[in-house]
């Protein structure tokens, strides 16, 4: 019996790895297993080689393994490309009839995927379902779970499509039963998995919908695009959302600013290159004190970089983006659950302090699936902080940028008060008119920057920590490294390792970090970048120098195995 296994499904872009991958995730979850699935894909529509890797276990999973136990090679090139990542005791499923003899590798097992698809489903389109059926046999899963998953996935396409997929899956399962004599990859079961499968971008969409985001604009850019698709999906479903694809990211952020000024909760999402174009607008949001929420789903840069891969190298960029000085908040969710809660929270923070709020994710979090118990919809609060006619009457004349005791000026919605609202990107008076007065300038800068940063630093998300008391060594990370740190810490004997996960990186939670790191013997940042940006940020904000940084900048996520290997020398 295995504690866990990993299944890798590989093939050319366009072969439907994501579909078969998510269907098989659904099968596993129904069969009572926890899963973690990540996607490795190239920047092309057809050809090349992509894979979808699913880790299966009887306990909660938060990160990928570097290698796999089962490889489903859907094309001729995959056996050669992935042989090195397959465990010595693993199995490689390959269609010799379609692609020829393949490698001479004792792990190779021949399954006529295409023939079975054509004979049972009527077309080669059903290859993936044949593979699903065969995998079910290989993992000793009841075929009924495959039927259920196929119903759930293809149900909206009609009974006939479902039937053909089921026939193809049955053929794959029967082929395993009649022809496969090797080891069955049984996995030990434990606590039941969560009833839902979700990736990071799904969770951001749900956070935005739950927060009442009614206007969304973006320009398509991997790996953020599925957020735009998700918002449009809920628009079509009848939620009060208008999604507008912009001509460029400059237009996207300016439309979002315009809609927010007019009173709509508004959001944009992009990746680093698109965010670079939004930077001018970010500064506009800062100056005009217009609330906006922007997601940066990071990918490796500079410039176009690796369009479909992962990195965490925009940390310094996001903290410093924009000409001039103004307040902002930056969140870095580590899981789908956190992506959901930080997204709805971002809308409240943006409106309370009238600032841009940035949500920093990456391709790894965006595209990786986990089984989850659910999302905490009950905690969702919508707090708008909009000044009504009654609120502004207490002052007599309405001034958009009035200096107040709280430090926050009254934000009223144009046409929803009897007075008018003036907003300006130039330095402005309390009334919102252009000024060049030095005294006004000083007070406005202090209001927009010093005061808001001070207020924001009272609302910080406390970093999450684990086993800090006993640890010889404390890991520190932000964003998507949460999962791998969590699993690694839990698996090292004698509680030798603890970790800190930053859900919010700006304003920097300095006093929390000083307190948490105070007694740590050895401090190590874990980062998906080359510049040890978090280590630098900690030093700058707290004066604490970490001992070392474990970095990764090859465009691939930090796997459990990678972090364990790197830590060997540190313990």
């Amino acid at each position, binding site marked *: 019996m295995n504690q866990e296994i990993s299944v890798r499904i590989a093939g050319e872009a366009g072969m439907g790895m994501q579909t078969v991958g998510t269907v098989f995730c659904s099968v596993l979850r129904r069969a009572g297993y926890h899963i973690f699935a990540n996607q490795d894909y190239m920047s092309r529509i057809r050809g090349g080689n992509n894979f979808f890797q699913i880790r299966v276990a009887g306990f909660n999973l938060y990160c990928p393994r570097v290698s796999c136990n089962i490889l489903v090679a859907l094309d001729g090139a995959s056996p050669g490309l992935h042989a090195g990542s397959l465990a010595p005791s693993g199995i490689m499923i390959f269609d010799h009839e379609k692609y020829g003899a393949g490698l001479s590798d004792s792990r190779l097992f021949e399954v006529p995927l295409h023939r079975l698809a054509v004979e049972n489903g009527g077309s080669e389109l059903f290859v993936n379902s044949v593979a699903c059926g065969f995998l079910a046999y290989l993992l000793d899963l009841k075929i009924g779970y495959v039927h259920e998953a196929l119903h759930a996935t293809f149900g909206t396409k009609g009974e006939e499509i479902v039937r053909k997929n089921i026939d193809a899956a049955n053929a794959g399962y029967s082929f395993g039963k009649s022809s496969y004599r090797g080891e069955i990859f049984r996995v030990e079961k434990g606590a039941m998995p969560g009833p839902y499968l979700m990736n990071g971008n799904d969770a951001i969409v749900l956070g935005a919908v*739950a927060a009442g985001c009614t206007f969304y604009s973006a320009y398509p850019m991997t790996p953020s695009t599925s957020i735009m698709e998700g918002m449009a999906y809920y628009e079509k479903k009848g939620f009060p959302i208008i999604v507008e694809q912009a001509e460029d990211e400059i237009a996207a952020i300016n439309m979002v600013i315009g809609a927010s*000024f007019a009173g709509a909760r508004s959001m944009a999402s992009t990746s680093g290159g698109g965010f670079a174009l939004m930077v001018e607008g970010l500064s*506009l949001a800062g100056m005009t004190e217009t609330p906006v929420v922007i997601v940066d789903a990071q990918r490796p840069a500079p410039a176009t970089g690796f369009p479909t891969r992962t990195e965490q190298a925009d940390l310094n960029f996001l903290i410093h983006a924009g000409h001039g000085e103004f307040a902002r908040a930056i969140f870095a969710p580590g899981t789908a659950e956190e992506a959901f809660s930080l997204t709805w929270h971002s809308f409240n923070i943006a409106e309370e302090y009238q600032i841009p709020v940035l949500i920093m994710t990456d391709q790894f979090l965006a595209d990786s699936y986990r089984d989850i118990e659910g999302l905490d919809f009950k905690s969702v609060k919508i707090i708008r902080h909009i000044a009504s006619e009654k609120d502004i009457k207490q002052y007599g004349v309405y001034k958009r940028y009035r200096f107040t005791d709280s430090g926050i000026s009254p934000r009223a919605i144009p046409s929803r008060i009897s007075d008018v609202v003036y907003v300006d990107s130039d330095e402005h008076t309390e009334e919102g008119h252009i000024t060049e007065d030095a005294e006004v300038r000083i007070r406005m800068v202090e209001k927009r920057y010093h005061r808001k940063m001070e207020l924001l630093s009272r609302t910080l998300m406390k970093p999450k920590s684990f086993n800090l008391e006993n640890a010889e060594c404390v890991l520190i990370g932000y964003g998507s490294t949460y999962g791998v740190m969590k699993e690694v810490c839990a698996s090292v004997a004698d509680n030798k390792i603890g970790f800190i996960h930053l859900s919010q990186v700006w304003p920097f939670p300095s006093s929390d970090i000083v307190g948490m790191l105070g007694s740590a013997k050895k401090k190590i940042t874990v980062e998906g970048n080359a510049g040890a940006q978090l280590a630098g940020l900690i030093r700058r904000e707290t004066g604490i120098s970490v001992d070392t940084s474990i970095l990764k900048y090859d465009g691939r996520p930090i796997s459990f195995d990678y972090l364990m290997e790197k830590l060997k020398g540190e313990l």
Partner: protein
Amino acid sequence: MNIADFKSDDPIAWCPGCGNFGILNAVKKALVLLDVKPNQVLLVSGIGQAAKLPHYIKCNCFNGLHGRALPVAAGAKIANPDLTVIVTTGDGDCYGEGGNHFIHNIRRNVDITVIVHDNQIYGLTKGQASPTTDAGYITKVQPYGVVADALGPLELAIALNAGFVARGYSRESDYLANLIVEAVNHKGFSLIDVLQPCVTFNKKNTYQWYSERIYKLDNSHDPSDKKKAYEKAAEWGERIPVGIIYRNNRPSFDQRLGLSARKPIIDEDLSSIDISSLMNEYV
């Protein structure tokens, strides 16, 4: 409403004699004719001398970044279709820095009115060529004369099938006010390119130069005839036509999305959004 209702106390920062004054008066007159209240109107601008105009009228104002007035205006109008949204922009702001937004907002066709103060020069940065400066015109940074040919904004707009394309002249303030009324009443993106002398930096296209050439289009021009409209838009030299050059009734953004049938998204009761069934999608 009368002109006094739109009076702003903000001191005006334009040069004496600037063509912008005629446009400012025309906008105020148009708002009176449109019978809208100051709080129902949103003026959006970018950067440049034209972009200061919203400060000189009492109504809602978003004075944003250079070139970026159009996406802000579109976002605001989509969020709240109740607003009368007018953009006051310049030839550099709208056709140069914001050229991409100009093209795509004509396509998008949100119901906004765009008044371009076209003085064929950069005023605020002191006299460089703009996209509409005539080729050959000499400036400090174009000492051999402007090399690029001038952009024809009206021809471009007609090629993009803009629903309302007009040309005005800042000295003809009443005439311009009526054009603005027509433009605001048009459902969809409407463009008025307003010829406007820059008394400080444009020594060629002066009041006299324009007054000698400008004539008003009469009933003999059919603005629904795209081919004829294109010819009128391109007429530049000895005679320059002003008036409504082209119009069509292609559906606006909100007509295509059926926005008028529902309440503005800013009036949605966000706390009543039913999120209970959302998780069913992720089983």
